[in-house]
């Protein structure tokens, strides 16, 4: 029977919690920021001035200081194993915060908000709460914590997707997102319960030792893995859990689309990688022996299906946001390749690819917004002749797309190089996967190039008399993102070293 802890035990628990609070400062800080933003909103009554957005921006920037402080702390478990602090988690903390900041900046540039909503109110507070959720996803080391943090991200994402209340597409997207999300969460938590049934543990490290030490029913373990994969697969947008993504990407406000496609995917990968590398035992007895299938094989199937499906279906898209949605499904496939090899080089490659994806995808969505501000459209046909009217935007978008294809000298090329290197470093074992990867990236060239094709090779249907000027700040930001995409394509050592440093997971020795 469950016994109540004695007074002394409670004392020690409290002491331990108090001691751990110091390791939790970024999360606390961001929670405070969340509440402060709501207060500011009450004061300014949701007027569309820049006070809220700048406060959010500065607030998020402040959290980088707290995250940076954590480099000095030793890697370890917090709150009785619910939470871990390691370089790997820090990587995703930076990732989510900087992504959030970019989302705020992009929102400030997006004119659709002026048309669609009366008050920007809780929008920024919700972005902050999504950042908190992602940060916690990256650090969760316990099934309960994983579920809670994922739900925190999902719930805010549903609201933000449907933020344009009077826009039918936006509401439709939110509903679809919610339904798919609810189903996959349900499946995932069922998988968790099976794991708990097998091991009586919720901590990932303990699950691993328990499974390895006492054996398990292979069928149940496999079923549990499959169910959990449904939850993670939904977050990273991999086939066959991708059905929500084209509609959501198309319907959601574009800054949210950009943020979901980059940071939410990354947070999903943070969890997926931690779960599979830590909790699934790969010593003896081997989980690979079960029914002739194993989790790396599952991920391999997911990865191949995502690369092929995403890249092939994207060819027929006429809406740029949908096109990028399918491309993001394909990129989930490339990212999975680095996890499948199950070594430090692979993890490093995945993290590097995430960084490169961050730059190029945010950049692409940003330009898409700027273009939509001027033309009011995201249709491929309306991109005709834009190269002449928005020269910088056209050039920047071309660079981002070339980077998404994976051509040098861009950071996307280095990302692919690292992924394929990690595959080939294992000899000819994963050559087939590498082949699928490169052949599908040739396909991707075709549809990515449809955008420059319309921008440069075709003339506008309705010739406009003057050039579109997206404004000074937008030009600078675009140029910076473009420069970074090219710069890190030639001098990628700092990014790669950071990815390597971050590939240290607590509870895992490579």
């Amino acid at each position, binding site marked *: 029977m469950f016994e109540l802890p004695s007074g002394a035990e409670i004392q020690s628990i409290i002491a331990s919690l108090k001691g751990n609070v110091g390791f939790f400062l970024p999360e606390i800080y961001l929670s405070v920021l969340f509440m402060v933003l709501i207060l500011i909103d009450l004061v300014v009554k949701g007027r569309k001035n820049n006070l809220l957005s700048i406060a959010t921006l500065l607030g998020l920037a402040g959290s980088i200081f707290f995250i940076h402080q954590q480099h000095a702390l030793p890697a370890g478990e917090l709150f009785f194993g619910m939470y871990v602090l390691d370089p790997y988690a820090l990587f995703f903390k930076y990732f989510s915060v900087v992504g959030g900041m970019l989302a705020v900046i992009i929102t400030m540039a997006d004119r659709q908000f002026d048309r669609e909503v009366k008050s920007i109110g809780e929008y920024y507070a919700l972005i902050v709460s999504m950042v908190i959720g992602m940060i916690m996803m990256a650090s969760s080391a316990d099934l309960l914590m994983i579920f809670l943090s994922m739900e925190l991200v999902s719930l805010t994402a549903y609201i933000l997707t449907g933020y344009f209340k009077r826009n039918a597409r936006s509401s439709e997207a939110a509903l679809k997102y919610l339904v798919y999300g609810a189903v996959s969460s349900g499946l995932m938590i069922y998988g968790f319960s099976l794991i708990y049934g097998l091991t009586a543990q919720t901590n990932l490290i303990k699950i691993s030792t328990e499974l390895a030490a006492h054996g398990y029913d292979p069928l149940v373990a496999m079923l549990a893995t499959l169910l959990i994969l449904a939850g993670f697969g939904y977050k990273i947008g991999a086939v066959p859990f991708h059905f929500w993504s084209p509609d959501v990407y198309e319907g959601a406000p574009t800054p949210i689309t950009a943020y979901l496609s980059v940071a939410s995917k990354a947070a999903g990968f943070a969890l997926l990688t931690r779960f599979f590398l830590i909790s699934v035992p790969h010593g003896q007895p081997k989980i690979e022996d079960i029914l002739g299938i194993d989790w790396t094989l599952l991920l391999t199937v997911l990865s191949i299906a995502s690369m092929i499906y995403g890249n092939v279906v994207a060819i027929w898209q006429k809406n740029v946001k949908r096109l990028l949605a399918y491309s993001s499904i394909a990129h989930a496939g490339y990212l999975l390749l680095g996890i499948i090899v199950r070594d430090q*080089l692979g993890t490093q490659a995945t993290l590097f690819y995430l960084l490169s994806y961050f730059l190029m995808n945010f950049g692409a969505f940003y330009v898409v917004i700027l273009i939509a501000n001027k033309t009011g459209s995201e249709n491929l046909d309306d991109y005709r002749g834009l190269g002449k009217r928005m020269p910088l935007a056209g050039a920047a978008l071309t660079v981002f797309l070339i980077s998404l294809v994976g051509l040098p000298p861009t950071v996307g090329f280095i990302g692919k190089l690292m992924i394929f290197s990690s595959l080939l*470093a294992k*000899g000819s074992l994963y050559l087939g996967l590498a082949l699928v990867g490169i052949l599908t990236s*040739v396909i991707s060239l*075709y549809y990515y*190039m449809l955008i*420059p094709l319309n921008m*440069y*090779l075709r003339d506008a249907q309705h010739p406009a008399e003057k050039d579109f000027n997206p404004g000074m700040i937008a030009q600078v930001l675009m140029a910076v993102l473009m420069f970074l995409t090219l710069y890190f394509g030639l001098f990628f*050592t700092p990014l790669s070293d950071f990815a390597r440093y971050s590939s240290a997971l607590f509870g895992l020795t490579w």
Partner: protein
Amino acid sequence: MLSLIVFLPIIAGLIILAVPSSQKQIIRIVSLLAAIAQGVLAVLLWRTYDPSMAGITAAAGGNPVGSFQFVEKLPWISLNLGGLGLFNIEYFLGVDGISITMVILTALISAIGVLSSWTIQKQVKGYFILYNLLATAMMGCFVALDFFLFYVFWELMLLPMYFLIGIWGGPNREYAAIKFFLYTLFGSVFMLLVMIGLYFSVLDPMTGNHTFSLVAMADQHNFIKDAILGPNNVMWRYIAFSVLFVGFAIKVPMFPFHTWLPDAHVEAPTPISVILAGVLLKLGTYGMLRINFPLFPEVFHAGMFVIGVFGAINIIYGAFCALAQQDLKKMVAYSSISHMGYVLLGLAAGNSEGMLGALYQMFNHGTITAMLFLLVGVIYDRAHTRQIDKFGGLSSYMPRYAAVVTIAWFASLGLPGLSGFISEAFVFVGAFSSVTTRYIAMVSVLGIVFGAAYLLWSLQRMFLGKRKADAAYDLEVGADGHEHIHFHDWKGKLDLDSRELVMLVPLAVITIFLGIYPMPIMGMLTTSINKLVQVLTPVVLTSMN
């Protein structure tokens, strides 16, 4: 010096970026100055190049200096990959016999291309920025000795080329541009995988680390025996050779990967056709010589016959296709395919004569085909058509044009005394003296006959005889009582104007001069080719690991 010659165009491109787009003349002059400076540097390289140094592989001790010339070697990227050691990429440039000639050719053709671009009126600024980017990428490919660097330059060519065909091309340009892009990318992605595989298979003898250095890779002793592309992994080495070969063959282009070329040429504006035929195609065969063959010599030996067969198919099939064309530019494009077949045949021979012929043919094909495309451009500018039947009797009205055409056409069909003859002769001498390719060579000789057929036939139809009834021009009697021709809406000079002469005369002079005295180019080639043949001869490896 090599860095300068590579990056001069891109510097010009950056300057152009700052020039307002209305200042068309300044933009053109900046590009021209960069091209001239590049040319001057190329001449300097040519004068100071020491033909006694072989190149291909490193000198004793694995040091590329002492074997390659004008070497620039700087650490570029160095990553720690834990158990896999350091990930080293070097900024490593250098030339030997097989690249110095291509550097000279590239500088020459780039400069002529700038002159030929003078008539471009649409979006001049964008055009020259892309043109200069392309020029840098091409030059970079020929001097890069680090595989990674080579790959970056190689891929960097694609995007400018896509836009140059796609924006400034003919009516069907969208199709031609994306076809070019997809074909070449398809070839080069496999190269990426092979490159990574080679990286994990080769150790730099000087540092003991894995390396991308092509110089280290060219020495079989530097391979790790059991690595993925090491000598013990015979199957993977064959596969790697084949996919690399296909990647380069697409660029050559070799049958059956050639279909992008006629489309690209027909749609591309004249200067881009000149660049494409003059330099880009050479990159395919250069890649084979620098990377494909020396890195996998035993596979090359096994595949010589197949390569020779493909060479022969190229020669004969290209000539047949050229014979059937009505469009003059398409005919020249197919003649390019045919002539690149001679290069493949010479390479397949595998001996010094064949290789020398192949490399000399690469240079000569560059100059001759550039001339052919320029001449097609000249007539197209005036008549706005390239249909061979729409002309007739041009020689009496455009004598200078007809004279240059005659030189170019005869050089192309290999008339003795012009440069094309010498290279084709060497190719056949090499192919006949090699047991493997002897019979292929016999069949290929037919190509010369067909080559003569389509060239002479087109010459006759266009330049001899009288104006045809449906010709692209009218006849008028001038004030002097003589008959003149008159092209609709052509305001310029009827015969070649001075700009066109400046482009064409040097090429014609080079063609004639190298046909009489080939040593300026051949002299630089011989040492390197002997070394290359030595590297390609299979040796039983005894050492290492």
